[in-house]
């Protein structure tokens, strides 16, 4: 079986004569086919692409300066202008362009959530892998620590930490990452616990592979699916948490625009001044982004690990 000729089964069936393909199907092909079936996930991936594109190229796009205070023809500040042709999302309470602020505001969300997601994927995987692969005392210590982090009341601790360390984007990502890696570590550990007993790991060990090689070359690739899915879901959680912290005033600090803070500023004015556009647009941006991330995670789960889906019974 070293060459790629297909052995003729007993009975001498000819696959190609029956129109059946003997082309090998790669994992990537399978993934693409399954992911493509999940229409919402495809749409979400496209929307996310646009959001990331707009965030990256905000400086190049024909947008107003998000910190500029606009003035109308009479030389008066153009405050709280309702959406109209030149300001399609309106202007805020000191005359800044809301459209531009919503687009620039995506940077705060995306940077914090993206860095949190990557950080969690990296450290959660390493901690879970070490605990699951080595077991014993290392496992005990690491998992007790994980349990401890997971049993902390998330938002109260995040609020104190954000209030103390200030609302820099990297600071926020760091502290959210520290609070959120626990679930992933647990999942990776469970994967490693079962995978390390498999024959191919035994074979690798018998062939003289060192622990590090077994972990990264043999076991980890087989545990990638849940890592990717869980990290995507963490990104969604991180966007919501960042927005909540900014809403409460402990997250991203002005003048950096952020969706949570924009909603907070706008909500107080909606009742008194009817400025619905100050809440609706950043709020919608927030919902659409989180929804896309979560649908993407859902689609990835379906595509990467069909056994996990409860929907297909």
């Amino acid at each position, binding site marked *: 079986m070293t060459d790629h000729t297909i052995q003729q089964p007993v009975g001498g069936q000819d696959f190609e004569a029956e129109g059946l393909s003997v082309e090998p199907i790669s994992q990537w092909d399978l993934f693409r086919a399954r992911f493509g079936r999940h229409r919402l996930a495809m749409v979400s991936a496209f929307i996310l692409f646009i959001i990331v594109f707009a965030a990256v190229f905000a400086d190049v796009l024909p947008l107003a300066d998000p910190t500029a205070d606009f003035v109308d023809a009479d030389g008066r500040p153009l405050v709280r202008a309702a959406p109209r042709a030149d300001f399609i999302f309106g202007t805020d309470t000191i005359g800044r362009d809301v459209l531009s602020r919503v687009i620039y505001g995506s940077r705060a969300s995306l940077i914090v959530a993206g860095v949190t997601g990557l950080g969690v994927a990296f450290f959660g995987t390493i901690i879970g892998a070490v605990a699951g692969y080595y077991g014993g005392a290392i496992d005990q210590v690491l998992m007790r620590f994980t*349990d401890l982090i997971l049993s*902390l*009341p998330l938002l109260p601790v995040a609020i104190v930490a954000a*209030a103390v360390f200030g609302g820099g984007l990297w600071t926020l990502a760091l502290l959210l990452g520290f609070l959120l890696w626990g679930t992933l570590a647990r999942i990776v550990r469970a994967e490693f616990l079962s995978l390390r007993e498999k024959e191919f790991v035994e074979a690798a060990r018998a062939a003289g592979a060192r622990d590090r090689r077994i972990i990264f070359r043999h076991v980890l690739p087989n545990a990638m699916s849940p890592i990717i899915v869980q990290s995507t879901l963490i990104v969604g959680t991180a966007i919501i948490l960042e927005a*909540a912290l900014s809403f409460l005033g402990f997250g991203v600090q002005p003048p950096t625009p952020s969706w949570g803070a924009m909603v907070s500023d706008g909500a107080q004015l909606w009742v008194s001044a009817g400025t619905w556009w100050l809440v609706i647009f950043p709020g919608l941006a927030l*919902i659409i982004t989180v*929804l896309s991330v979560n649908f993407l995670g859902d689609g990835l789960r379906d595509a990467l690990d069909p056994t996990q889906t409860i929907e297909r019974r």
Partner: protein
Amino acid sequence: MFNYIIRRIVYGVVTLIALSIIVFSLLQMSGGGPLNRLKSNPRITQEYIADIEEFYGLNEPAWVQYRIWATNYVQGEWGISFQGTQPVFEIIKSRTGATLRLMLTALFLAVMIGVPFGIYQALRQYSFFDQLGTTVSFVTFSTPIFLIAIGMQIMFAVYLERWTGVKFLYTGGMNVPGYNDLGTLARFGDTVQHLILPAVAIALISIAVYARFQRASMLEVYHSDYLRTAKAKGLPRRRVIFKHALRNALIPIVTLISLDIAALIGGAIITETIFSWPGLGRQYINAIGTLDYPMIMAIVMALGIGVVVMNLIADIAYGFLDPRVRYD
């Protein structure tokens, strides 16, 4: 069983100690401290600041401060709020009731709506109702709670009153100022008018999560062998669902609720702020704004105890509900 409960209680206590150390050290790391304002005022003498530090014990090294705080805390001496002179214990006591009222109502709504919703979805799998429900829950738990709360406040408290001219629901507070002069029925009505919006705002996300989870749990049981047996021997559908399926399908939700308590607390902090609800959450935000150390510590511990106790109850309850669970 007994050993298991003891061990879980020990874990809970360790978690609370870790929580207090983490929050205490975080507060110590904050750039200035609660006396920043006094210190930046040049007309206030150093002696006065030293006196204040002495009075609140802020001149001691951090670990000594923690030791003093911890010894006092377990003895019920929770200190005096930096803002004013009220003992922290009294403030916590008066505010816990408000938070409990809000959270228990939200939890009640979430369980009573979310669970039947999920069961019904599972029984009508792939129907229009099921598909709609799945989509709506997905959108709901992808929405930050502050957007839900603000949306409800503006729609059902502000605009509903503007359009109808009748005040159905309030935008904030727990009761009207003249509450004590009202009759029993009016009191109840007033309480509901204030409670319903923030409680539903907190509950909505949990309703979505519970419905999704309950649907999956019900489907799993519904396709199991013992249920096929029950159906095959000709039991009426109602009996199959209520006597056989539900008993097992409802067990996992217990774990979910205990895991959800932390999320409910987070939701309560945000919602209390939006609806000016006089509970622990809003007090917490205020205390952090002014770096009121004793107050922050006391509230964090109260919330932490809430989470730990609920987790403990759920773990023990699970053992009673599912006889396959063995404690050793």
